[in-house]
């Protein structure tokens, strides 16, 4: 960016892109978390000192399990997701948008529902324990890698690897020495998200791990909620935060070191049809196996929603139209609430995360890296502690925000923002600096450069990010679960309520709502990308 030409505008832009995300993070993440940690560490009724907690062999055991299962889950997820990312990032084919939307579905399903489906699917002996945890983590997180990496791949100029092929490199060698280095930063980026999700995994570990396995997150929950030992919980939350901060630091560092730039091109120039039989077979095999892996648990959910007595019927779906005591509303209102909250959260995430993406992409300095890393922290901080933090942080009379409806999309956005940054920044960063310089030389203001060069290239990524942010907010991760809700239940809340009531019809309605959530996610992600495609004329 040419700062001599328009210094005021450049400074204002800088203040905006750094200031808004940092203020948002400070107010809605750091402040509540600091409040609860301060309260926890200061609570004196307990015999255990923070040092006792740290040196407890149980703490070490839990921390070790948390770490290794997260690393293993991350590596497995990348291995499983890479072939599909390649197919989506390289080829144009009918139904490509449908595949991209469908992959997103598992990611947003409530963990309890998926865990119950897994119990039914996994073979006896494998259905509980660390293997089940890893498989479930892969199931959930494949979407992260496929979407984040796939979106980047689709803008990677294929002429580079074509040149390598012309020069006689085998496809394997060209992948290893040309494509992989170009992908490395975005792989590191996606991997860090998967790592954080696995590291802080909660519901999956409780149900599929069985009672013998615990992660730091489940142990924090146990201490904070079951034992009400806030001091131990705070110490463990700090341990978790330090681990997460180290991981994030390493990932952002790696990402920047690996960034090569490379030529970005609009997707329509990159994607090409599947030509040879080999290409078609590879696409069919990689997408097909992924479809089976992701599809079977989803099919179990559909089947469970239809099972009534010994046969099948739509009774559970019909029952959804009736008001129920379980929700103080009809289930359809829960669907509407979910969509409204998620749309709000997606807008917040797109604005805050989009600005941050410009800041992160605009500089290779420590400041940008710090911003990028800080925005990742909400993914790795203890959800229960942040949730409790909200309860004590925003309690000043006469304005009490603890139970305002708008706090829900704000907290949902906390989780969605890092995704927006991760999807948009690598694309922005890879824009050839010479294009910007050329525009500037020709007299374009920095604002015009952003509007006419950055935005169109980022358009694809912004579209993907919008869909993803919406989907993430529908799924309600992290601290959202621990907020007190006014009487406007969302889909995941409604699913829990039905699941918590005895009676076959209640269980059926829980699964039916899970199927509806799947449909809402799939359709909305598809629609967002479709709208973007129509507007920009891309396919």
């Amino acid at each position, binding site marked *: 960016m040419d700062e001599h030409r328009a210094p005021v505008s450049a400074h204002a832009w800088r203040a905006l892109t750094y200031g808004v995300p940092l203020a948002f993070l400070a107010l809605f993440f750091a402040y509540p978390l600091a409040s609860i940690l301060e309260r926890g560490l200061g609570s004196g009724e307990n015999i255990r000192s923070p040092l006792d907690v740290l040196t407890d062999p149980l703490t070490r055991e839990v921390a070790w399990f948390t770490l290794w299962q997260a690393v293993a889950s991350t590596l497995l997820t990348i291995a499983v997701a890479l072939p599909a990312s390649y197919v989506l990032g390289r080829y144009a084919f009918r139904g490509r948008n449908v595949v991209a939307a469908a992959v997103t579905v598992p990611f947003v399903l409530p963990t309890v529902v998926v865990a119950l489906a897994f119990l039914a699917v996994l073979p006896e002996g494998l259905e509980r324990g660390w293997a089940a945890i890893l498989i479930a983590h892969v199931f959930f997180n494949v979407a992260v890698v496929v979407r984040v990496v796939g979106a980047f791949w689709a803008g990677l100029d294929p002429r580079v690897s074509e040149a390598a092929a012309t020069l006689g490199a085998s496809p394997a060698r060209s992948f290893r020495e040309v494509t992989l280095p170009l992908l490395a930063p975005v792989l590191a980026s996606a991997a860090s998200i998967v790592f954080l999700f696995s590291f802080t995994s909660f519901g999956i570990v409780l149900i599929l791990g069985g009672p013998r396995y615990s992660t730091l997150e489940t142990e924090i929950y146990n201490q904070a909620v079951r034992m009400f030992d806030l001091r131990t919980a705070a110490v463990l939350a700090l341990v978790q935060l330090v681990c997460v901060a180290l991981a994030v630091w390493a990932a952002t560092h790696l990402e920047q070191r690996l960034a090569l730039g490379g030529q970005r091109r609009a997707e329509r120039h990159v994607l090409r049809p599947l030509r040879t039989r080999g290409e078609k077979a590879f696409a069919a095999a990689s997408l097909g196996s992924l479809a089976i892996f992701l599809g079977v648990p989803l099919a179990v959910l559909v089947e469970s929603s239809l099972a009534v007595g010994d046969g099948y019927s739509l009774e559970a779906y019909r029952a959804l139209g009736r008001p129920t005591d379980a929700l103080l509303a009809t289930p359809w209102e829960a669907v509407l609430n979910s969509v409204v909250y998620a749309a709000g959260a997606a807008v917040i995430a797109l604005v805050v995360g989009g600005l941050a993406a410009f800041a992160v992409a605009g500089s290779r300095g420590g400041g940008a890296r710090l911003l990028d890393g800080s925005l990742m922290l909400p993914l790795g901080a203890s959800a229960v502690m942040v949730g409790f933090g909200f309860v004590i942080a925003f309690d000043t009379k006469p304005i009490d925000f603890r139970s305002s409806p708008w706090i829900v999309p704000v907290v949902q956005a906390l989780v969605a923002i890092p995704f927006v940054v991760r999807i948009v920044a690598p694309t922005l960063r890879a824009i050839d600096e010479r294009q910007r310089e050329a525009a500037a030389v020709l007299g374009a203001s920095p604002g015009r450069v952003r509007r006419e060069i950055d935005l169109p290239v980022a358009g694809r990524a912004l579209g993907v990010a919008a869909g993803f942010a919406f989907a993430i907010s529908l799924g309600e991760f992290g601290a959202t679960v621990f907020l007190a809700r006014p*009487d406007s239940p969302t889909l995941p809340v409604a699913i829990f309520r039905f699941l918590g009531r005895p009676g076959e019809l209640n269980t059926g309605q829980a699964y039916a709502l899970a199927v509806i959530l799947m449909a809402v996610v799939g359709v909305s992600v598809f629609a967002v990308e479709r709208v973007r495609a129509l507007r920009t004329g891309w396919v």
Partner: protein
Amino acid sequence: MTQCHKAALAALLGALVLGSAGCGGGDEPPSDVVLVTHDSFAVSDDVKAEFEKTSGLKLRILQSGDAGELLSKALLTAGNPQGDVLFGVDNNLLSRALDGDVFEQYASPHLAHVDERYVLDPEHRVTPIDHGEVCLNYDKAWFSEREIEPPQSLDDLVDPRFAGLLVVENPATSTPGLAFLFATVVRYGEPSWQDFWRRLRENDVLVVDGWEEAYNVRFSGAAGRGSRPIVVSYASSPPAEVIFAAPRPDEAPTAVVEDSCFRQIEFAGVLRGARNEGGARKLVDFLLGERFQEDIPLSMFVFPVNSSADLPPEFKKFAVVPESPLELPPGEIGKNRDRWVKEWTSIVLR
């Protein structure tokens, strides 16, 4: 965080969301009353509407996770609560709530219709609202098809005949699981309850995280197609299996082992520092009044404590109200809960 910081922050927040928060200014009495409760709370629309009509107050319901999360948040905000009335603290957690000084004293006139045995706090900081019994449930068809006598007592569970048939919830993570652990402590006493669990472990008891998995997935008698015909659930689960089935069967597919039942009582209380204390008292009266009490069985699947409340026909026909369930004083629970759970964990899980 000082009050000054908080005030500055509040001002900032206020500017951010101007107009979106309905903060009734001035000293006018609030026009609403806020009930803070857990996710299992439910009430029929018309019952809620009746409260609003008779009291002139809008009833806002704030749901806040399970009973443990609800209480944790109440303890964190003691003196500056999120609402006016809390409903959903049970006898398992009562001592923690009372020690945390969460509630204000209030004795509702409706207590005249409540049996003394439900009133666990003589100072009336909490008011009993409902009771439910955690009991073993079994799948009637499973036993009749195999011509095996279903279990009659806790003792039966360690019989090799019932090996591999029982699924229980982890008391560290589940309320019914905890109640069932208490049931064994009361029945067998210290330290014999530990032997009972060692023998249960030898008899291949399955421990799962929560009621949802135990009942909906592992148990053979409900929606799931699990393999375990005995489960820890509630005395009110059999009528729920009738009411929420399509079409409704003539008799409940599951039954309760009365000998195993442990009583849980749920309480409500006026929160200390409530914004609308007068409204809060009206709400406690309403919760204990006949209209709400008669709504309890079909909305929350527990039993009313008000003896003048009539039970719905489904409950009269299919539910068992155990005559003399196992009970433990809240003080004793408070003193020993964490130790028992720890000992249980090392016996059953390690």
